[in-house]
Every structure is written in C-alpha cells, then in structure tokens.
C-alpha cells in the first residue's frame, strides 16, 4: 500500500485569529513522524484542521490524501477517507454505549459509500472483533457497555481513543498527547499498543511532550513547531535533544516564530485604568 498525506502552506485561523502560518508536511504510509513544540505553538490546531473541525478555518493552502483534497471535505468524509485523530481532550457522549458507537463508526469507515439507514456490521461479527481488540489492548471488557467517554478517567479516555484507532484502522493517524495523563505503566502499555496497531500499518503523526511514546515508536522524522510553523525537521535524535534540553535553542534560532508564539499566548490587554 502506498498512501501519502500532503500538507502544503497551510494557514489556519480560529475566530479569525491566525494560528497556523504556512505549515508544510508530507507523511507517507508506514512512516512515523513526531510533532513537538512548546505549549500553544499550534500542534493540536494542525491536527484538528486535518481532522476537519469546523471552528478551524483554512484560509490558505491545502491538505491532500493521495489525490483527494481533504480541505473541501466534512469531518466525516475525511474520516471515511482514512484520517483519524486521537484527541487530546475527547468528549463524552452520555447514553451512547461505546460498543454501539464503535460499531456504527467502523461500519461507516469501512464502507465509505454506506447510506444512512443501511445495515451495520453484523452484531456477532463485530462483538467478536471488538472483544479480541480489547484483549489485545488489555482493556476491561466492561468498557464496551459504558457510555462513550462518560465518567472515564483521563487514562481510560486515552485507552478508548487507541481502541477506536484499532477498530477504524485509518491510513493516517494523528495522536495528540495520547500519553499525557497516564501513569508510568499506562504510558508503557499505550506506547506498546500504538506500536502494535500502528507501526507500518499506517502513517503516524505523534504529538507528545514525553519520550516514552517515541521510544516504542521511534520516529523517522521529528518536526518542531513554533508560532504556527514547522521551524525545524530532523530525525529521532532531534526529539531526544528537545526532550533533554527543552526549546531554548529553537526559540533563539527562530526569533520571528518565537515572537508569533508569544503573541498567540498573550492574554488580552488589561483595560487601561
């Protein structure tokens, strides 16, 4: 399989406030990319723009999956085209059982042409598959009956996102801090799970502030975002450097991007007295 996700000169605004200012990124199927950068630099924004969140307006540039122009698609069409994002803060859907949610999601993603109201994956077949995936990821079978993310602990939510990814097997997955909020054992388990499900079976864009996830999923490329742009790209060693030494060197080397980053972070001016 050869698929390619191409992001070209991407500019994204939220409420008319520019956040991304010209992002270029190419990910091939089977590759692992790390996306790092200080808080507020625009990492989640990039992911949400790729996933098609309606509040993230693309003002310039393009996102393409193979020949398809994602920029013109609704979020659900992008998902069916093979893009997946594990969210930094997944929302809860009260009253909707995780198993029912995943069955419908998996059906739509596997049969992109399915019309509303057409049959879902047969219940027995789906249950079997879900059960084995949950075993593989060491997730309590009780999960399936619980409402989507409702009352889940931070760690459970991230596990559920990984399970969702496993069930949807996308072509490209963006993992937004899927390792944060987890205890040491859980990080190890999550990292191993991602490697098992994702490595070589999709293109991965891993957003992280920690090193564990990348230890299990060594990136071929590490990108550093600052002020809404990717300012540097390197290999696995760049991720290690940033993890050990922080962003000082980056901030100093790219003063314009650093200024933009500070500007984005700046609170509203206090009213003059």
């Amino acid at each position, binding site marked *: 399989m050869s698929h390619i996700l191409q992001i070209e000169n991407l500019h994204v605004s939220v409420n008319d406030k520019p956040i991304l200012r010209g992002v270029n990124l190419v990910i091939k199927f089977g590759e692992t990319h790390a996306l790092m950068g200080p808080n507020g630099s625009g990492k989640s924004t990039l992911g949400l723009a790729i*996933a*098609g*969140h*309606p509040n993230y307006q693309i003002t310039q540039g393009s996102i393409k999956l193979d020949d398809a122009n994602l920029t013109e698609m*609704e*979020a*659900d069409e*992008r*998902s*069916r085209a093979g893009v*997946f*994002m594990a*969210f930094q803060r*997944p*929302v809860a*859907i*009260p*009253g*909707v059982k995780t198993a029912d*949610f995943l069955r*419908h*999601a*998996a*059906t*739509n*993603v596997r049969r992109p042409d399915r019309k*509303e109201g057409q049959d879902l994956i047969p219940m027995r077949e789906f249950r079997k598959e879900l059960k084995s995936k949950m075993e593989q990821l060491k997730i309590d079978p009780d999960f399936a009956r619980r*409402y989507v993310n409702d009352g889940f602990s931070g760690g459970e939510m991230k596990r559920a996102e990984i399970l*969702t990814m496993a069930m*949807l097997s996308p072509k490209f997955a963006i993992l937004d801090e899927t390792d944060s909020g987890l205890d040491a054992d859980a990080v190890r388990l999550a990292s191993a799970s991602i490697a098992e499900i994702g490595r070589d079976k999709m293109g991965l864009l891993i957003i992280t502030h920690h090193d564990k996830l990348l230890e299990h999923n060594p990136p071929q490329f590490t990108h550093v975002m600052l002020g809404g742009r990717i300012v540097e790209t390197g290999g696995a060693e760049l991720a290690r450097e940033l993890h050990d030494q922080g962003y000082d060197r980056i901030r100093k080397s790219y003063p314009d991007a650093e200024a933009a980053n500070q500007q984005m972070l700046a609170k509203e001016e206090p009213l003059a007295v």
Partner: protein
Amino acid sequence: MTTSAMTDKLDSTETFGQPAFDRLLEKRIDPAWLTAKRKQAWEVFQSIDWPNPRDENWMRSELRGLRLSKFAPNIDESVEIAEGTPVRLLEGVDVSAGLRSVNGVVVSESLDEGLAAQGVVVGSLSRCARDHSALVERYLHSLICPKSDRFAALQAAMWSDGYFVYVPRNVRVEKPIHLHSAMGDGQVDLSHTLIVLESGAEATVLFESSSPDVTAKGLHCGGVELIQHGNSHLRYVNLQDWGKGCWHFAHQRASVGRDSQLQWTVAAMGAKFAQVDQRVELVEPGARSQVNGVMFTQDRQHLVYNTLQHHKAPHCTSDFLYKSVLQDRSRTVWRGMIKVSEGAQKTDGYQRNDNLMLSDAARADSIPGLEINADDVRCTHGSTSGRVDEELIFYAQSRGFTRSEAIRMIVTGFFQQIFDRITIQTVREALGAAIARQVRQYE
C-alpha cells in the same frame, strides 16, 4: 361571561351545545347514576369560562387557533379504523387483552378466557358502565373533578366511550393489555381510561393513540384515572402519537395505595397543541411512583405538561423524569410540582426535566416547584436546557458519522437515561423507533 383573547373563538360552539348534549343523552343507554353525573358536569361546563390565560397552568399555552365549531362530538357512532393508522406498541408483544376505539368509541374487545374466569374485566367503558355498573360508578371521575377546567367538564359530560380495566384482588395479569385509540382525520375523541387494581393485583397496560397520517387533524379531550389499592403493581405506558394537526387536552390522574408501585411512562410525540395535567397522588404509606416522560417535538408543535406529585401520606416515593428534544420552531412547557401534605413525613420526592434543543428557534420552558408542609422530607428537583453540543457532533463526525447520524445518536443517547428506566423491552424498542422516525435530516 367574560372571554379572553386566548379563547374568544372557543365559545362559538354550537356543535358542542345543548342540542348535541340532549341528543347524546337520548342516544346512549346509560344507567341513571351516569346520566345524572353527565348532567352535573354539563352544568359545570355551561357555568364556567374557558381557562384564563393568566392562570399559572395556562399562561404558556396557545389556544388561539382552536375552533371548537370545526369539530362535532361522535355520538356513539361505530366506524372502521382509517387505513394507515399505525399501531406501534404491539410489535413483538404477546397480549392478554386488547381494546380499540375509533373516534372515541370502542369497536373491538378481546380478553383471554383464563383472565375473564379470574374476574378480570377489560372492556368498553360504556358497556361496563352497564354490565359492571356498581364498580364503574364507584371509580369513574373519582379522581378527576369536572370543575378542574372547562375541558374536564366537557369531557365528563360528553365522554363517548373508553377503556375499563379491572384486576381483582391478588390477580396477576402477566401479559400486557393493549389499548389503542384511533382517530380519523378531522374527528373527535372524547374517550376515558379507567384502570382499577385491587389489593395485590398486578398488570401492564400499553396505551397508544394515533391518527391515519402525520398531518391529520382532530380533537382529543380525554381523561385517565389509575386507581391502585394496597400492594398492587401497575406499569402504564402512554404513547401519544396523534397527527400533527390535532388538539390534545387531558387530565390524567393516579392514586397509589399502600406499598403499591406505579411505573408510568409517557411519550408525547404527536399533536399540534397538547395540554396535559398529570397528577400522581400517593395516598397511603409506602406507595412508590416513577414517571418517565419523553417528549419529541417538531415544526410548530406546542406541548404543555403540568405535573403534580402529591405526597398525601408518609413514607412514599415519587420520581419524575421528563426529557424533551425540540426541533424547528416547536415549544415545550413543563411545570412540575412536588406537594407534600402535612404529616407526610419521610417523603422522598424527585423531579427533573432536561431539554435538548436542535434548533435556535425552539423553546423549552421548565418550571420546577416545591410545596412542602412536612419537616422530615427529602425533595430534590432540577432542570437543564441547552443546544446540542457542536463538539459532540464533531467528535462523532471525526469517527465517520454523518452530521445527521451524529445528531440522531446524540438524541438517542439523551433519551437513554429514560430508556434505562423503562423495564419493558418492547416499549423501549417501539419508543426508540418512534423517536428515530422523528429526527430530521440535518445538513
């Protein structure tokens, strides 16, 4: 007689005038006590005014479009059910008895022989008023006072027929009893439901009302009385699915006796305008009641529910949960009251109303209230109203759901809390399907 802007047109009602009432009395074969009762109610009807729009119960109602003169009471006319009139609560259900009325007059009756032999009665209220005269006389309109309002008076005077269910002492009716009220386009339904459970009795009653198509017009002015003696257990389901051109007025009352249990599920889907006054009275210690309400509205539908959970005795429990989903320019009003009488200590009262708006133009009023005259009680209430959360829609879309599938799922999830409380699976399924049918395509 003073009339108000809200109701000024209601009065031009020659169709519900003296000649109509006289003709009704003449045509019916009622026992003397019933004729006397009707005449009393007729006097009330003639002496009181239509509801005052400043009245708490009616100030959020809208009767302006109602023209009584466009309708005429069905005086004992037995007609065929109109083609296309849906029956939703029978699917997958093995029933022990059934009644069907068309335009408020019962046209078919059935009852398992075994139950009949045990003294169970399921039959036309008109017929039972003759065949079980003493029984019906004792209970009919014992909970609903014709003076409640002018609609109640009209119904008490002119009710056309209805459903009588009587379960004798210690008899358990295992299979559900199905009651269906069908109303033709432009017709009138003045039916009455009377259900009596003696001590230790148990029954499940599935009641539904429907019209031949979604746009059908009509007028329903009805009453429901559920009477439970000690240690009885009643599950009562009421699916209101009239056409969206119907007017629906109803007084619905339950009286729950010692250590008895009532589970009352209400699903309000149809009607153009509905005003329902629902009361559960806990009259002896240990009575427990649970009310599950589902409302789903669209277009310009306007549903008003005034509910009262009245604790008249100590150690009783009442638990009311109403949830509504509103589309388009529709409107719901829920005014809930927990009333605790003096001496009703150890009351446990709960009421909650949650509303989910699928459009900016929809409006939900939620007015919980407490009136407590005892000091050792626990009463809690709450309500929420809000738009469907765009973040939830995006989350589902990012997992392959279309926008309208996402909304459909969120709506189903919103009602799930109520479905989790409904113990009858076929009812859950039927209501789920009815709701799914009503969710619009959102783009």
